């Protein structure tokens, strides 16, 4: 499987800021939460962006590929239908599980980094890939805990996942920062271990640190440390795309534009 076409710098499309996304200068691509879209009734703003030629990438949050339960065929089918409706070059979800035993966690839960868990994840990813019309990229998550008895580092885990499924990677540098702050992981080692040639694009988001815990809120400004990690990644590879995520507490148009400009500056400065 080849590399992802160049995407540029984009922003997460959310209904509350649809007009802002349309107005912002130099939005090269956007990402939508796939579960929030109905294929038969795409938001007018999304249709408009597509007419302008802006790539719209569906991002799923509910496939629960790390779950021991079989993949929900309807969710995969919906994701594929959204991708086709949008003419998307790829889709994405997370390396996590969000439900087990019929219960939904409401959060992206980390997968135990064991060989058994990897086998389950690989099987589920292959099932999803077989039923999707476009390639699948998988994202590293921010976790507040690590399961005991892990056999692989997160980088090794993802590297083996890519090797066995040929999936792409969606690397969230804010999640890398969160895990470094909260779990003591080494982001540089992570970047050393993953196959950067399989990078689809990068997520950048804001958060807040409270009582020594970093919360990946997507509702605060992007921390300089997160941009530093983006720079670290850029010094190793030229990512096809970088996307700013903001999901709540939306700032003014000018502040969002400034955050996107900061991303561009980091990419240019570390080239």
């Amino acid at each position: 499987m080849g590399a992802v076409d160049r995407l540029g710098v984009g922003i997460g499309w959310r209904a509350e800021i649809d007009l802002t996304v349309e107005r912002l200068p130099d939005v090269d691509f956007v990402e939508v939460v796939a579960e929030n879209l109905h294929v038969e009734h795409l938001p007018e703003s999304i249709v408009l962006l597509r007419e302008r030629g802006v790539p719209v990438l569906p991002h799923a949050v509910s496939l629960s590929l790390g779950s021991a339960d079989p993949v929900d065929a309807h969710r995969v089918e919906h994701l594929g239908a959204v991708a086709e409706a949008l003419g998307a070059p790829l889709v994405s979800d997370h390396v996590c599980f969000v439900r087990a035993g019929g219960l939904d966690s409401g959060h992206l839960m980390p997968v135990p980094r064991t060989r058994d868990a990897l086998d389950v994840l690989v099987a589920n990813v292959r099932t999803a890939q077989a039923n999707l019309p476009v390639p699948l990229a998988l994202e590293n998550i921010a976790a507040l805990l690590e399961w005991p008895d892990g056999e692989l580092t997160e980088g090794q885990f993802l590297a083996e996942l890519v090797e066995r499924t040929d999936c792409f990677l969606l690397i969230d540098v804010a999640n890398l920062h969160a895990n470094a702050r909260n779990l003591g992981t080494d982001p540089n080692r992570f970047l050393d271990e993953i196959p950067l040639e399989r990078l689809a694009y990068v997520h950048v988001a804001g958060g807040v640190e409270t009582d020594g815990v970093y919360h990946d809120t997507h509702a605060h400004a992007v921390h300089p440390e997160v941009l530093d990690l983006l720079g670290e990644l850029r010094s190793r590879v030229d990512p096809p795309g970088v996307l700013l995520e903001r999901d709540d507490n939306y700032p003014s148009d000018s502040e969002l534009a400034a955050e996107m400009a900061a991303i561009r500056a980091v990419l240019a400065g570390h080239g």
Partner: protein
Amino acid sequence: MAIGLVRKAAVMTSGTRTTGRSGMSVEEFGYLSGGPGRAAEVAIVRLLEAGLLRISREGVVSAVSTTAHGAATPLEAYALGAARGGRALGSLIKATAGSGALDAVKQHLVDRGFLVSPGRRRAWGLVSFIATLVGVGAVVAVGVADLNVGIAIVLVVLALAVRWSTNRMRRPVRRAGRREVNAVTVMSNDRVGIVAQHGLAGRIGNFPNTHRVWEMLGIAPSAGATLRRGKPGRRSNDGSTSASSCSSCSSGCGSNSSCGSSSDSGSSSSCGGSSCGGGGGGD
């Protein structure tokens, strides 16, 4: 932000108040022109114009994250807080129109003699009800108690006269309030003032080239479509209407049952339609 309300073709004002004898605020002008919903629209549009709120293509209004203290009035502060998590425009108007902050606006207008107090309106309502009973009773008495037809006719005519008179007395806006509204001229570049005068769903421009106020504000058609026009209410001369005309936005009506927001303007218009309605992350 400049508010181009001019009283008696005199002084242009700035901020959120008009100048002149009464120093009426734009929210108060909106209230007198179209009821509590209109005042709520004024507060919300002022925040939109100031960049403190944003509205989506589908009509979801949300507060813009900022550390600036941008709310200039208690009503604006309420609207800003109510929109924190995102809210459909119509829902936000209704919530703001029913807020305690708007009660304070209304009370201020009552205290200054521009609005009839709820107590007085209830009293006149009771008089109207009694007059109705007398009229109906007179007609019934002709049949069952041999009441003289002439006396019955006199009683019915009197009852109708009292009802007509009390209904006029029950109008929310008093003559002094109507005079205040008439004394205000809204400048063509005063977008908030235009909302106060016409309402978001009101029409402006010269026939046949008219358009809705929300169109002038640049609100997307799909968002503007969430502002339903209510059924025309009974016309009155005070820019407000009876409770029956508030059917499309009942919660947009204040406790005195005046209309949420007339889409017509000025002191001579009725509450033709209300600007209420509904519109409407991952890692």
